[in-house]
């Protein structure tokens, strides 16, 4: 009898355990949730919740925060977000934004122009840990004539201001003004109780696992169609691709090789887009090796970019003959630097390369450590060796790279040439920070210490241009100057990929640089079981 009783108890325990295992997925389906690897890949920024220190991750951040303005879903035009309309004065010194009257913070308080003033003030203050300070230098003042009007006054025209504003998420003054500015950057508010105005609101962050958001029923654009969003964290893009295939997530960035495995599968939609990042060899301006323009040009002639694009990018990249590849920014008649080792050798001979450096090794420093990029550097090494330039790739982590190139007293022998990338779109002014002579560290990010008067004056003219119709022509001048003197050996602009499950409806996802933001209309996203 006792034995029978024990057997029944054991069976009951086993049955309960099995039932709980089986019940888990059923319970999970009671809520409609879209899960994604929203912060996977170069456009993501896993573990960062502070939009003011965000250099990427805007796809996810803009599901619960919102900027004043945002790029449209083609990354071509500026579209309304918290600002419903705007006017720019003819001298480009005054930007007047009309704010959405029905916009509310997730805690129910109204969003007003005071929040705009507060956010811009924080973003300009280096003590807040903001990465926007240098880009907002021209902002002189923010006036708030009424609750729904914010007027940004500039001290000088800044062609990149609207682009910067697309990335500047508005923050609630009533929540954050009590926190000391210098304590804000690392404050737990960002990952515990953040408050935004977006279609979804914060639920929780499960450390290193996922972030969960719930639908904001009071969103001015309408209640979201799903109950929540989940941003799953992945250590590698391969595991994110595995989660996509197993149906656990509905969207993620994927590597080009992984994208091929989804092609032709009706359960998924592969999204291809421009990276808007130009890869380049940054010749260190302090290094005597590259002083002669002919040497720099020889490097370009010696590298068969089309072969690298065909074999290592699978054709998914476009060669760059200056900082830009967009048709409207590249003037006709520039030098294509088509592969010609003979021309490279002739130029090196003319320049006296044997006396300048000869076969001595030259470190090629890079923060690219992914296998594809390492292979690319190896290919460049082999091609340059053919003409007598002995580069030695050295791929390091980002911190080491930054420490080397941003050193207070930089040693050019540590990085005579870098292989790096810089965002060149949708707004072409992004390149300024990395190549303008006035942006040499600590002022900016011109880590290669390029001192090219032609490029600098062309960029200054483009940034100060007040006539929108002349802007493209100004950037063509930048392209022409770069192509002529070759301060960088510009290589290519690659494609990027993402995959969206066909179960997810109206989900707008782009492999945008830094994750956008763009007008993703997250409130319209839905998912079928």
């Amino acid at each position: 009898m006792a034995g029978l009783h024990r057997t029944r108890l054991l069976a009951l325990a086993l049955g309960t355990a099995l039932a709980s295992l089986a019940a888990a997925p059923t319970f999970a389906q009671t809520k409609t949730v879209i899960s994604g690897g929203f912060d996977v890949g170069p456009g993501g920024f896993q573990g960062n919740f502070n939009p003011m220190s965000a250099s990427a991750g805007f796809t996810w951040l803009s599901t619960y925060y919102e900027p004043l303005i945002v790029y449209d879903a083609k990354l071509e035009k500026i579209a309304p977000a918290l600002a419903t309309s705007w006017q720019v004065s003819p001298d480009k010194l005054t930007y007047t934004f009309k704010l959405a009257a029905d916009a509310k913070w997730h805690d129910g308080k109204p969003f007003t122009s005071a929040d705009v003033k507060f956010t811009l003030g924080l973003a300009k203050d280096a003590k807040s840990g903001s990465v926007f300070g240098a880009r907002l230098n021209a902002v002189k003042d923010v006036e708030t004539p009424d609750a729904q009007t914010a007027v940004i006054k500039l001290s000088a025209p800044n062609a990149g201001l609207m682009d910067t504003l697309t990335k500047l998420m508005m923050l609630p003054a009533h929540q954050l003004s009590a926190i000391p500015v210098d304590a804000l950057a690392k404050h737990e508010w960002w990952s515990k109780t953040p408050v935004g105005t977006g279609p979804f609101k914060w639920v929780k962050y499960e450390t290193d696992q996922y972030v969960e958001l719930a639908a904001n029923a009071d969103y001015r654009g309408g209640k979201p169609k799903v109950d929540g969003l989940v941003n799953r964290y992945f250590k590698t893009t391969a595991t994110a691709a595995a989660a996509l295939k197993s149906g656990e997530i509905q969207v993620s960035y994927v590597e080009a090789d992984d994208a091929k495995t989804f092609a032709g599968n009706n359960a998924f939609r592969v999204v291809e887009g421009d990276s808007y990042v130009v890869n380049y060899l940054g010749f260190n301006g302090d290094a005597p090796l590259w002083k002669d323009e002919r040497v720099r040009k020889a490097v370009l002639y010696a590298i068969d970019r089309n072969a690298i694009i065909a074999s290592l990018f699978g054709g998914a990249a476009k060669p760059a003959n200056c900082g830009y590849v967009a048709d409207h920014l590249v003037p006709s008649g520039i030098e294509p630097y088509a592969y010609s080792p003979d021309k490279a050798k002739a130029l090196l001979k003319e320049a006296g390369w044997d006396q300048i450096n000869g076969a001595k090794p030259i470190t090629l420093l890079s923060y690219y450590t992914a296998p594809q990029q390492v292979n690319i550097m190896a290919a460049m090494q082999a091609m340059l060796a053919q003409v007598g330039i002995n580069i030695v790739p050295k791929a390091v982590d980002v911190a080491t790279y930054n420490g080397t190139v941003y050193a207070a007293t930089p040693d050019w022998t540590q990085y005579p040439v870098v292989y790096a990338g810089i965002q060149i779109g949708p707004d072409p002014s992004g390149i300024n920070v990395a190549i303008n002579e006035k942006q040499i560290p600590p002022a900016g990010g011109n880590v290669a210490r390029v001192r090219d008067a032609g490029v600098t004056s062309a960029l200054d003219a483009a940034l100060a241009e007040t006539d929108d119709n002349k802007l493209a022509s100004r950037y063509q001048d930048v392209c022409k100057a770069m192509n002529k003197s070759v301060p960088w050996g510009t290589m290519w602009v690659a494609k990027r990929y993402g995959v969206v499950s066909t179960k997810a409806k109206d989900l707008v996802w782009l492999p945008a640089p830094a994750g956008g933001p763009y007008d993703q209309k997250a409130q319209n996203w839905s998912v079928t079981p």
Partner: protein
Amino acid sequence: MGLYILRRIGMGCVMLVALSMLVFALLRLAPGDPVDAYIDPSAPMSPAELAATRARLGLDQPIPVQYLAWMKQVLAGDLGYSLQRNHEPVARLIAERVGPTLLLMGSGLLVAIVIGVSAGILAGVNRGRVIDVGLSLPAFVGISSPAFLTALVGLFVFSVNLGWAPSGGMRTPGLAPTTGDLLRHLALPALLLSIGHAALIMRYMRASLIEVLNQDYVRTARSKGVRERWVIVKHAVRNALLPVVTLIGSTLGAAVGGAIFIESVFNWPGMGLMLINAVENRDYPVIMASTLVVGACVLAANILTDLAYAVVDPRIKIA
């Protein structure tokens, strides 16, 4: 016995100090500057700011002075603050992650012991037969497969293709934590972590059992008419377990290494994943404290293994 344990703990502490000195020196001597972790490429620091940061962190002091300052802090119970995780106390971060890692490693080792010992007995008893060859072949594959490969292949087969287990994480987002959900997420990584160890244990158990089965006392037991099953269970297996216990103790360090790979592939929120993230971000306080805690766990496990000898083999006297 008590003295022995105290002596082992004392030796363990000395080894921990040596380990911490080694890791500290390696981190400081590695290429690059620790202050690099504080530099934001979008907001470069001025030389004055860099110098101030270096002084604030004590990085302007000689390495031995830096180490002593760190050790003094640790002895006072302060493991420091994470550089990358909003300055959270490292002790809190570790406390959150020790549990998941112990759960994964413990489950993996338990599965490995059960499978390895059982398969080893089966193979040993059936030496040279089909069952022996059938078990030895996968064991060789298991021993030869590195943890990261096993993890990726397992993920692809069991999660992507068969859909039997979640592809990662420790619980389903949006669900209230339940034991069932935890077990669903634990099963695959624990099983994959166990493969290499199970294979090794199986080979040791098989070899040890074969040796024991040829001993005189086993022959005597058989000649006295003791049933074969009883001979194996009572006389052979218990004695054959001794080298296996040694093996289990010595593979704990490898299990930690394996858990680091498994945790990063399955995004299991344990010490391994935190350590990898800390190394990538040069989060020195987290790297140092994690190494110390993992080292302490391995040393403690080794001491426990020594004590387990006495339980398995009464002939061994610990003093």
